[in-house]
């Protein structure tokens, strides 16, 4: 080995500790997991839980994609409607909102900051159990309450009318409660992250030396804490309305169903940024580490996360351009929507610039990062069509929207999650996976994803509405390509699961810093010891300072 490890740099070479028992083996038995306050174990539990949710919701999607291969519905309309409701609700509330912050964020935020744990370890464990409770309540509400409303639960359709004309809001209240409990769990994670970032950074770790994944997680945490209470207000209003029979959302009592959309999106739009900001954080890490180059525009990327977090609260009305809200409101929301596009564009430009004159390794994490640049750029650009008022009037509630948000949520967040999992897997579990196997996965996912969702842009622009169990046969060719794509995508993801589980068992032992990264999580052994570091690290440089960077060129340049 010619390159020095990060640990040797930090400890001047004399800190080589003998291998110590890692966090996975420090305690044994299922009880030690269920009562753990170790942020790493909680992160792993979240990872297993959220990925199970992803698996279930993904299989549901494959079932109705198979149904959509023909214009008629073999499943029947009622079952089809319940399936897409479950798919959306599980994907959004159970999987994608907590997936990155609660799984990878929990595991790596303290490690990256050079601290032993998050600020409130017990609260952290509690957030996991609150999440489990929330998912039980939400699933019970949807399944037992026969909800077929889509994940957005729009009134008055979600107020199941009783035969005597009165409303039955029990399923809606229960579903909102489920979403709120899940949101509450993310508040606990958010509070933990905010305090940890403010109070527990290692000596020398100034704000400008924090890895960008930490910045992104911090911005996300702020949104989680501020946005979720709106769900509680919605819940309270729903209950007040039904106990006192005052019209708030229910038109039968003189309420305004569009008001429910305002409340719903006031939470759910910032939630979109809860889903995507941590993904931006991952890409900022992986693109820099695997090209051995200092991230381009550190401050711009860090501050654009904060800017996005703030503006994200002010754009919810773009979900309602055709709902009958006033034109003035529509204009304002359209303008603010374009305002949020600018910091997002800055990030993409900065990532591409990071590749310039790097030393780029084409490993699985980097290939997923490049895939992210491809798919997320399409997701972002198609958002411009939807932000433009006149064009949105045509595209609203069509497959174009479905394609757009899958390019952002899946092409953005899920692909970034895959980049992150491949980047940090050796650290988390101490094992290397097979790069050849991973490359097959990347190719399948890339082809499958684009086949599935690119066709849906054409479907939408040509006039295919979303949430249709049956459709006009003219749309069939695109639906067939999309469905075949989804099976390829499913196969790619299943393959990924298989080789990663194989690697857990038979993988080669991972070194402390397999990628030659410079942030603190790589300065401890793989997997880390229970208390993360043998001694508190001292930080005197930024996290993107690689030995490969040609310092002489900088001097010659100036």
């Amino acid at each position, binding site marked *: 080995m010619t390159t020095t490890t990060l640990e040797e740099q930090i400890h001047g070479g004399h800190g080589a500790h003998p291998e110590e028992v890692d966090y996975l083996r420090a305690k044994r038995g299922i009880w030690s997991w269920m009562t753990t306050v170790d942020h790493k174990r909680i992160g792993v539990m979240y990872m297993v839980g959220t990925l199970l949710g992803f698996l279930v919701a993904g299989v549901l999607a494959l079932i109705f994609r198979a149904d959509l291969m023909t214009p008629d519905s073999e499943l029947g309309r009622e079952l089809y409607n319940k399936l897409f409701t479950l798919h959306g609700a599980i994907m959004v509330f159970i999987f994608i909102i907590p997936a990155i912050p609660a799984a990878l964020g929990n595991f790596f935020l303290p490690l990256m900051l050079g601290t032993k744990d998050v600020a409130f370890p017990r609260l952290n464990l509690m957030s996991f159990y609150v999440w489990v409770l929330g998912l039980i309540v939400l699933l019970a509400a949807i399944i037992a309450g026969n909800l077929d409303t889509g994940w957005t639960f729009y009134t008055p359709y979600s107020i199941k009318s009783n035969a005597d*004309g009165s409303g039955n809001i029990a399923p809606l209240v229960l579903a909102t409660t489920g979403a709120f409990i899940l949101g509450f769990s993310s508040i606990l994670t958010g509070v933990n992250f905010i305090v940890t970032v403010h109070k527990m950074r290692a000596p020398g770790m100034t704000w400008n030396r924090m890895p960008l994944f930490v910045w992104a997680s911090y911005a996300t945490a702020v949104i989680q804490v501020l946005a979720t209470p709106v769900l509680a207000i919605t819940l309270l209003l729903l209950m007040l309305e039904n106990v006192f029979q005052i019209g708030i959302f229910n038109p039968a009592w003189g309420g305004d*169903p569009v008001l429910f959309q305002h409340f719903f999106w006031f939470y759910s739009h910032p939630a979109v940024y809860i889903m995507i900001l941590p993904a931006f954080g991952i890409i900022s890490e992986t693109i820099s580490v695997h090209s051995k180059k200092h991230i381009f525009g550190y401050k711009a990327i860090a501050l654009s996360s904060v800017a996005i977090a703030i503006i994200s609260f002010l754009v919810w009305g773009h979900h309602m351009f055709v709902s*009958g809200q006033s034109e003035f409101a529509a204009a304002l929301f359209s303008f603010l929507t374009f305002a949020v596009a600018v910091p997002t564009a800055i990030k993409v430009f900065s990532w*591409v610039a990071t*590749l310039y004159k790097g030393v780029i390794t084409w490993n699985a994490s980097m290939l997923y990062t490049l895939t992210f640049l491809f798919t997320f750029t399409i997701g972002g650009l198609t958002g411009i069509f939807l932000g433009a008022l006149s064009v949105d*009037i*045509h595209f609203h509630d069509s497959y174009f929207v479905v394609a757009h948000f899958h390019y952002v949520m899946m092409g953005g967040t899920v692909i970034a999650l895959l980049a992150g999992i491949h980047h940090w897997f050796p650290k988390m579990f101490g094992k290397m996976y097979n790069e050849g196997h991973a490359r097959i996965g990347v190719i399948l996912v890339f082809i499958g994803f684009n086949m599935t969702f690119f066709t849906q842009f054409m479907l939408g622009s040509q006039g295919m509405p979303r949430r249709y169990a049956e459709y006009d046969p003219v749309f069939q060719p695109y639906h067939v390509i999309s469905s075949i794509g989804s099976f390829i995508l499913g196969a790619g993801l299943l393959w990924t699961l298989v080789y990663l589980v194989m690697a857990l068992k038979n993988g080669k032992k991972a070194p402390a810093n397999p990628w030659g990264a410079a942030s603190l999580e790589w300065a401890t052994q793989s997997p880390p010891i229970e208390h993360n570091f043998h001694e508190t690290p001292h930080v005197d440089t930024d996290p993107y300072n690689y030995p490969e960077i040609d310092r002489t060129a900088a001097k010659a340049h100036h």
Partner: protein
Amino acid sequence: MTGLFFLADASGKGFWMPPAASEYAEHVDALFMFILVLSVLFFVLLMGLTGYFAVKYKASPTNTRSSPVSHNFKLEFLWSAIPTVLLVVIFAWGFRDFTSLSATPADALELRVVGQKWNWTVSYPKLDRECTSNSSAKGENVVDFYVPVDRPFTVQLSSQDVLHSFWIPAFRVKRDAVPNRYTGYTVTPTRPGIYPVFCAEYCGDSHSQMRGTVHVLTKEEWEKDFLGTDKCKLDPKAPDYKPKLFAKYGCNTCHSVAAGRAVIVGPGLHGIYGKEEPTSAGSVKVDDDYIRESIEYPSKKIVTGFEGKNMPSFKGRVTEQELAALIDYIKSLQ
């Protein structure tokens, strides 16, 4: 490569959009093309650079040192400012065309559109006509309605029950139909033809069957084939008045009238008159009174096996004369 495929196909006729059949559609398509061209340019630029860098700077025995460049103020300023300017242009363009939807000239043809689960009723208040939907054997509910070319028409939308959305892709317009409130838009058809209409806001089981067809007629056709005929006239003396009424209230979206009594949502009605049916309140003979009660108070005696289907009450919505006509119609299904 993908970028080129994108551009080549996008320029192909009709690759993205259905034929543009209204003034508004032409405006939408122009802005769509503007954004598309910009998007393709930016996408090709970004992916071209990404691919070029990824290949050119791949780690190799000759490429072991990376550049120390970590920021460049001029570059960062440019790539913030240029998108900002472009986005402001797109915003203003989109807003300008959007406002045209709510400008209603005095000579506009007035249409009143009511959505209910799961059909549309399109009426012409000044022409005393009302187009109701026809249902096919497959359960599609399609309303046919007619507008003249080159004359603006304005749609006043409302809903009997839940949210719906009245989308005419060829005109590029849609707006939600909301209970308790009117919404709407004004649009000018420019090309004669027959174009599909969809419900775009999810509204339950048969959402995908809530459809329509708009016939854009030339001036002569409008005079001769619409105004000169009794299309869409609801005439109580006409032979098809009763089935039309049955469709107008959406009865057909849940109750089949064909022999065999296939179940759509509720019980099929063919041959039901005079039969004994098991219900939640014991066995009941289906007569005029029971049908009347089932229309006005559907939950009183629910036919066994259909509990929880929650048929809405039509009390207050159906007049005495219409009730009689509906009962006669069900009686005739033998």
